[in-house]
């Protein structure tokens, strides 16, 4: 079985994001970039499946700028076998990413496609669902447990009501929740080895996918600031304020 894992390079989740003064976006110059956290869970799950003997190859793929190779190298260091960078410039919307991934799926013919449930930059939460629609494959989103049963997968999904269990035929697209597993750290020897693993670079334009955004970003601004609060001296004062000033209890 072959697993394709899609990863994305994003601003590190510990960075306090700042809006550009001209309102065209957020500051990314000299800002620490990392792999999108739930994509780490996606890689980890694929590696675990391979370690259990149920998969033979893991291909990591990313769509983005030249530097996104870093994110692929990280995936290679924790266990992916080879990487594919589909090079693009500017904002690439989830629909365009899904179309690019569809082209790669057509070529590589994986049995499973894994990715994080959502990227923490644009917070769209679309790509996996869109890819499975384009392929007419089953989708298992927000997966917190995956079990392979012959030619099927049993997946537990984190939904608002609680937990939902579904069964999907392989091939399928799975988007991973943070609770799916505990991503491992890459060891130094594995980081070194990853540098020698194959990494293919393809231009998005060569795949025949139009990546021009359909949703125009008019402006990006700071969210409204909350008015500054006060510190209370003790619990009695707190309860008094809540009762008589805020009138919420």
């Amino acid at each position, binding site marked *: 079985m072959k697993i394709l894992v899609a990863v994305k390079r994003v*601003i590190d989740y*510990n960075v*306090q994001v700042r809006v550009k003064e001209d309102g065209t976006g*957020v500051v990314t110059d000299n800002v620490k970039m990392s792999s999108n956290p739930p994509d780490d869970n996606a890689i980890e799950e694929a590696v675990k499946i391979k370690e259990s003997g149920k998969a033979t190859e893991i291909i990591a793929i990313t769509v983005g700028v030249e530097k996104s190779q870093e994110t692929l190298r990280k995936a290679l260091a924790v266990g992916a076998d080879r990487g594919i960078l589909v090079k693009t410039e500017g904002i690439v*919307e*989830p*629909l*365009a990413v899904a179309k690019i991934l569809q082209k790669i799926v057509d070529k590589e013919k994986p049995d499973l496609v894994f990715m994080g449930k959502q990227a*923490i*930059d644009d*917070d769209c*939460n*679309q790509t*996996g*669902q*869109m890819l*499975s629609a*384009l392929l007419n*494959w*089953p*989708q298992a*989103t*927000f997966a*917190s447990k995956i079990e392979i049963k012959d030619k099927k997968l049993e997946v537990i999904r*984190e*939904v608002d009501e*609680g*937990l*939902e*269990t*579904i*069964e999907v*035929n392989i091939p*399928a697209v799975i988007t991973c*929740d*943070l609770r799916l597993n505990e991503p491992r750290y890459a060891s130094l020897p594995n980081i070194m080895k990853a540098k020698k693993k194959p990494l293919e670079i393809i231009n998005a334009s060569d795949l025949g996918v139009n990546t021009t955004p*359909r*949703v*125009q*970003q*008019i*402006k*990006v*601004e*700071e*969210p409204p600031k*909350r008015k500054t*609060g*006060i*510190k*209370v001296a003790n*619990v*009695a004062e*707190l*309860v008094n304020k*809540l*009762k008589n000033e*805020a009138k*919420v*209890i």
Partner: protein
Amino acid sequence: MSALLITEHNNKEIRPFTLNAITAASQIDADLHVLLIGNNCGNIAKSLSKMPLVKKVLHVEATYYENYLAENFAPLIVKVSENYSHIVSSANTFGKNLMPRVAALLDTSQVSDIIKVISPDTFLRPIYAGNAFATVKSTDVKKCITIRPTSFEPCETSSGSAPIEKVKAAEEFSLSKFIKREEVKSDRPELGTARVVISGGRGMQNGENFKLINAVADKLNAAIGASRAAVDAGYISNEHQVGQTGKVVVPDLYIAVGISGAIQHLAGMKESKIIVAINKDGEAPIFSVADYGLEADLFEALPQFLEELNKLNTIQK
């Protein structure tokens, strides 16, 4: 052209966020139709027809619509969408799972999780976990939109009389199968819609200590939340998680106990009307969003808080 809202329900009752989504969709286009897909859900069709903002109810039934698999819903929605300019649903796990599948089939770039309708093609949406707001304009002919439920008021549910029209089911998708759903039962209000929420963080130190939170929650009729750190540490189960990777809550009163205020937690609660922070670290970022901050040891403060609440003659429920 009109807007089409996808109803979220469990065949017995309408899920509450559908009411917020109806309000949002009606702001996009006042000629709002709702699509009800389910199995034996005739009563829900009747309830929807009574909502004054709803101009028409489209009702589809099939056994395979019982458990709202996106693979079954999406082709049907695509078929029905022919006469509509906008397809709308709430941006909870129901809509997040479903709408992109619809959008891809329609070759439309979806606009996710909007918090404001600026015009029928322009919307405000949070990005970077709410650390920035983007104004975006969709250029697609057909628009697929999910709305953040807590940013819109629930709609009126009585005095309307919209017609109900039956629609034919689409084909079943046979490669995905629903097995079961384990719903979390609780006597407390639902986290997403509670008037008061009290949340514990890593400062709680263990799951046992959440009994201090429970006692205050009982008194205030509050829902119980938690930070991701507390969930990851195993103190409490994930359905309590508030934040970017959990639930977004907007209660009248949010009480954060032993929560430092990581960016991802703030994203889930900073729109609350009144925020209280109880933390022994006076420098914790949670104080920057708190209306009332109490720098104190939570193990002393929580029992005192309960004691003070007990002294009050009345407490709003």
